[in-house]
């Protein structure tokens, strides 16, 4: 056996390969990141409820403290327990989604193997700061969730999450009058930072409040599926 020779059989997925080792197309992976308390887990839960009847779904959570977010999803029974996996991050949630994605890749692959075939895997980051973004080796698209109560100057401040995420969600619009946040200003600032990248405003307390995010996810999934068929 000679070292350093190229593989003679199909290399297994080591990163973001679009196919699984058996050649089938893998699930679309969407990452959700954002500051603590902005509503990432609530958004994931609402997305699961909105999409689970039509799609085969799974969720990976990256808690700062072990299984808090995973347990929230379990308690609210948004998906069967075997479709939810928790990754531990050693107090560095941004490392697990960006610099060293190995544990998250194992989690998504294990879910596909255990409960697949899957259409969509949501990877939720632990609550982090405005610089947290997902590696393209882990997810195909990422959503950044902020909220109006965190300050209406967050879109203006920018940062990689706000400026580069494929979708910016401004959550808790129902609180805007109480915290003195100017939604028009947030929308204007976001447009300035993000150019043509989409921004949606949500209030998850309202009827079907997650619809703008769910619609965007369906569009991404349609694009992913047709790219595989092409």
């Amino acid at each position: 056996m000679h070292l350093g020779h190229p593989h003679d059989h199909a290399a297994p997925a080591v990163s973001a390969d679009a196919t699984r080792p058996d050649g089938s197309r893998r699930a679309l992976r969407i990452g959700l990141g954002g500051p603590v308390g902005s509503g990432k887990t609530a958004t994931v839960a609402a997305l699961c409820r909105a999409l689970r009847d039509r799609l085969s779904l799974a969720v990976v959570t990256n808690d700062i403290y072990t299984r808090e977010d995973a347990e929230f999803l379990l308690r609210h029974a948004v998906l069967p327990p075997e479709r939810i996996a928790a990754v531990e991050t050693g107090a560095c949630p941004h490392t697990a989604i960006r610099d060293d994605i190995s544990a998250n890749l194992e989690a998504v692959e294990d879910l596909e193997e255990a409960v697949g075939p899957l259409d969509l895997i949501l990877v939720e980051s632990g609550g982090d700061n405005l610089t947290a973004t997902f590696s393209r080796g882990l997810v195909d698209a990422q959503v950044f969730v902020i909220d109006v109560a965190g300050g209406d100057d967050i879109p203006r401040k920018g940062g990689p999450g706000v400026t580069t995420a494929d979708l910016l969600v401004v959550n808790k619009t129902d609180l805007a009058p109480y915290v003195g946040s100017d939604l028009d200003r947030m929308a204007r600032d976001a447009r300035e930072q993000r150019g043509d990248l989409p921004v949606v405003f949500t209030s998850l307390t309202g009827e079907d409040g997650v619809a703008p995010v769910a619609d965007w996810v369906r569009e991404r999934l349609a694009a992913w599926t047709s790219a595989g068929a092409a």
Partner: protein
Amino acid sequence: MSRSALLVLADGRFPAGGHAHSGGAEPAVRAGRIKDAADLERFCRGRLHTTGLTAAALAAAAALGHDPAALDAAADARTPSPALRAAARRLGRQLMRAARTAWPAAELDALAEAFPRGAHQPVVLGTAARAAGLGPEDAAHCAAYETVSGPATAAVRLLGLDPFQATAVLARLAPDTDDVAARATAAARRGVDALPAASAPLLDITAEQHAAWPVRLFAS
């Protein structure tokens, strides 16, 4: 050997999952056994000369080309804690992914195929070192150094320990680390049956307790 390849493999930023593990530091901090840099140094020295020696010898043996399945069984026999076995296999699987991308090699492919859920991390480490063109001393140094660098980084996060002091601990341990790597390599050259079986029972016990904590920062 390529010294630069060794730096790549030993780099704390090598994406192989280590950042989520404290090497026993989290339960030791909680129990009050690590409160400052001096405690950290004693903890790391103990870990280095026990599980560190064992891990380094396994890594050196894998780098020498000993049968990885036999080495994996030897690692299992030297790891009484089920939680630490699970952590070692998980880390082995994560390291395998990074190593196969960095240094594609038939021996890594074969090991991954034989252990789809992960072989023990030191065995993968030694095989990765071999694929990178490194020798048994290099693999032993990597394994020994990881034994102390993991807890040191974790202590910085858990205690707010001065990072300069934590790094100074690692520097002061360098002669011990060299010594452990040399002893591990010598043992590995004598064969699988001559591998050391040093262990730290308190680390095994606290690893089991830690795995049952409902709230923790590190996976192990």
